[in-house]
């Protein structure tokens, strides 16, 4: 898949297959296109896919509007969660949850019923109840915002969850709690793509595959040991290799 933003090509040929029950980690230097890939999956209007397709359970995801994708089970935990003033967190999550239920032909939950469900799911990430009645993400600390993203994941139970740097900004305890939450949400039926800069996260959530994204391409894939190698050697090693390759091809 190739994609541009404002006419600039950011993704230059991504090939990736994620199966049910798998966890993939995507790593890569700043600006390599990780968030771009994540936002394209969620359907952000700023990005234009110029070539290729994205198949989700056999359907072309790119033909669906962002809200349709979400109701079909695609979820993005934002690298920078958005503040929505004046809309309470609980109300927002109930509406989202009910949209999904309606989509499946199920009864909607009223505010009281939902309150119970939310309290139950909040335990997964040990989320402070006080944050439920506040406006969505408004004035939340960086860590609280990230926790709130995973709470939404717990409420919506997506089939494919893309977590964009959910670990950044979490303190040591929060990282353990939130990772534990993600592990609890893992089932043989869903799949998770983790975007991260730190191998530490992968000690908690152990990936089946690790990919390195560099300049809009996946330049290397491997098992969890790839992350360890990166931690040790940094990206120069890969950049060097890729650069070398390109020179070789060019020569």
């Amino acid at each position: 898949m190739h994609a541009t933003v404002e006419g600039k090509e950011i993704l230059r040929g991504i090939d990736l297959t994620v199966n049910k029950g798998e966890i993939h980690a995507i790593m890569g230097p700043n600006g390599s296109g990780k968030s771009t890939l994540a936002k394209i999956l969620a359907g952000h209007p700023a990005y234009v896919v110029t070539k290729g397709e994205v198949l989700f359970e056999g359907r072309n995801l790119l033909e669906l509007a962002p809200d349709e994708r979400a109701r079909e089970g695609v979820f993005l935990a934002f690298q920078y969660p958005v503040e929505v003033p004046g809309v309470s967190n609980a109300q927002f999550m109930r509406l989202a949850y009910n949209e999904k239920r309606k989509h499946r032909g199920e009864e909607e939950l009223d505010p009281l019923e939902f309150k119970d469900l939310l309290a139950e799911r909040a335990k997964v990430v040990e989320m402070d109840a006080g944050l439920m009645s506040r406006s969505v993400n408004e004035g939340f600390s960086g860590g609280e915002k990230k926790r709130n993203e995973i709470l939404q994941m717990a409420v919506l139970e997506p089939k494919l969850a893309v977590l964009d740097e959910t670990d950044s900004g979490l303190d040591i305890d929060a990282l353990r709690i939130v990772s534990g939450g993600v592990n609890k949400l893992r089932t043989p039926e869903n799949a998770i793509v983790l975007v991260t800069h730190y191998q530490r996260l992968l000690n908690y959530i152990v990936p089946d595959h690790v990919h390195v994204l560099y300049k809009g391409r996946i330049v290397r894939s491997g098992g969890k040991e790839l992350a360890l190698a990166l931690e040790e050697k940094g990206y120069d090693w890969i950049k060097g290799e890729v650069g070398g390759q390109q020179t070789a091809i060019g020569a």
Partner: protein
Amino acid sequence: MSQAVKEKSIYADAFREFSGRRAGEPVWVSRLRGDAFESFEAAGFPTTDDEDWKYTNVAPLARRAFVPASAAAEKLESAAVETFVSAEARRSRLVFVGGVYNHELSSLEAIPGGVAVEELGAALAGEHAEVVREHLGKLSGERGDAFSALNTAFAGGGALIHVPKEVEVAAPVQLLFLTAPGEGGSASFPRVLVVAERHSRLDLIETYAAAGGDGAEYLTDAVVEVFVGEGARVTHYKVQDDGDAAYHVASTRADVARDGAYELTTVTLGAQLSRHGIEVLLGSEGASCRVDGLYLVGTGQHADTHSLIDHRVPRCTSRQNYKGILDGRSRAVFNGRVFVREGAHQTDAEQSNKNLLLSPEARVDTKPQLEIFNDDVKCSHGATVGQLEEEELFYLLSRGLHPDLARNLLTYGFAEEIVEGIKFESIRAQLDSAILNRLRARLEV
């Protein structure tokens, strides 16, 4: 020229007839009316050449010969009225139909003894005549415009609320001005006088609505004067939900004494053309006011708010927060002046006007004006005009909300700051449904 002559004849006959019917009123009232009518005739309706009316053209209403409502008002069933009564004010309300007081539909059971909540005509003939005489027209006369003058001339249905010193009125008093179906072409002139003596407390809900049949063209020309005594607090809600084709022109003027507090929240939902003039005088030290508002207009509506907060002396505080939501082909005007006079040291004033345009055809003219004539002050003001935030919208969509619902929720969020400050659940609920219904939402709150 021909226009002015025509206007004269429109209301001159009506005024003669009206005066005839009011022959029994005290002389000072007849004189007040006569003088007001003269000044109305002299000034005529304002035109867009008038700086204050630059963006609001009243020519369509000036051309029409609205007939001042008389006693022969349409009957309304009490069931039809109940829906407009605030639940909190069920037993503390005065109801007016077509500008005429309706005793059967009113209820004063919850009004404590010593507090006067009376139809203005009755007040003039009763024990509070002096209170009325002392206050009526004192705020509206001086700087009153043609509409205020016309109101004074024809003031028919109206109320006096007098709260003696140190009395707290627990239940909110609602003044409900309804227009019945079939009152197209009529004009009503509600006139309200509120006198809250020192250290008293009052909550007031002033409501305008069309009971059934939204399409009638009628004119509401209202004047409200509020005197907040020393250390007293008056919390005032004005909900304007007149019919779609109605004209609503109103002025609210308050005078706040030492350490008194006046809190006004206006909600503008109805009328094809509405204009609300607000003037708050902070003339004694420690006086404060809060003036908040929300206007929500759609295709075919024009809503204009002109306010003046006048800091005349040191150490007064004012807060003003107005928000507007404009949909379809609608238009709003906000002109907010905060005046800080030369001696008014340590003035603390904040003003904000934010507008949300939901359609490319909506238009708002906003002009916050701070005029400060001394430098020992803490003042801020600002205005914004914007659309829904794309990133917020995407965030909601990415959680599966349908686009309509996502937009409505963001709109609701925009209004929430004003809604949450409203003390009465019945008004909040009315606003919630107005915001969500108008925008065809499906959010139950």
